């Protein structure tokens, strides 16, 4: 319990320092001004969400291979935390877009593929509520999770493969792209902070899944008496 509290405190501290750095340390962007500061939170959360979905994908593959419940628990845990991250991305993106583009939303490749990603993992979570039998639920949701992950590289590649309304990548974007050194440091600090926050939420959510398993075991024992 103490370790979990310390982990939570570290996550909150890092996220707070990240926000402080984004709002007060990073220099103003030349054309967009202050609204660009949303980028540090928006993009860092998107990276954390995609990492979380990658862990979900690995857990789904491992479940199909080994059929151990812990991988099913990790899969649903990461899907839930990933959905929270992508929800934040889908909210903060339009808040940035409105003053910059003059519109809240457009159906371009990056925005649409991100929205589809959110819908896919919402479907993953809904699918689990529809199947009663635990083994069948775990297999079907693992298979669906593996399928859903196909969209993650599409989201990553959308601004590289196609011309989009969404800005071109500033990290791993090829020649001509890049960030001011201070902006880069602030961005990667925020990436670290959001990953630590996601990891903390994953630990908490995984423990919930373990407790759920304990309840089911005790219920079976009570029924057997």
């Amino acid at each position: 319990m103490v370790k979990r509290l310390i982990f939570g405190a570290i996550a909150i501290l890092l996220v707070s320092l990240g926000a402080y750095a984004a709002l007060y340390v990073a220099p103003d962007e030349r054309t967009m001004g202050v609204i660009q500061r949303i980028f540090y939170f928006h993009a860092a959360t998107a990276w954390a969400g995609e990492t979380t979905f990658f862990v979900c994908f690995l857990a789904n593959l491992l479940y199909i291979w080994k059929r151990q419940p812990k991988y099913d628990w990790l899969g649903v845990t990461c899907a839930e935390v990933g959905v929270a991250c992508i929800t934040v991305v889908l909210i903060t993106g339009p808040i940035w877009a409105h003053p910059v583009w003059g519109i809240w939303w457009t159906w371009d490749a990056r925005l649409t593929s991100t929205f589809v990603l959110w819908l896919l993992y919402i479907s993953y979570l809904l699918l689990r509520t529809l199947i009663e039998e635990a083994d069948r639920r775990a297999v079907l949701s693992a298979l669906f999770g593996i399928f859903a992950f196909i969209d993650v590289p599409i989201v990553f590649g959308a601004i590289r493969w196609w011309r989009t309304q969404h800005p071109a990548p500033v990290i791993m974007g090829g020649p001509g792209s890049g960030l001011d050194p201070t902006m880069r440091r602030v961005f990667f600090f925020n990436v670290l902070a959001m990953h630590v926050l996601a990891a903390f939420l994953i630990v908490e959510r995984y423990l919930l899944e373990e407790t759920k398993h304990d309840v089911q075991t005790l219920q079976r024992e009570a029924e057997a008496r």
Partner: protein
Amino acid sequence: MKNLNSVFAAYIIGWSVFFLLFVSIAKRSSDLRKEVERLKRSTPGKSQEK
């Protein structure tokens, strides 16, 4: 500072989403722990074996 309100709104809404997820996990955990205790009390033999 133009658009500063939008920047703060984005951060506050974003943090609220994570806070709500944490509260939801904590609430569900607390309910399940109570259920574990209730079930352990109703099956004393088994809980002692554990």
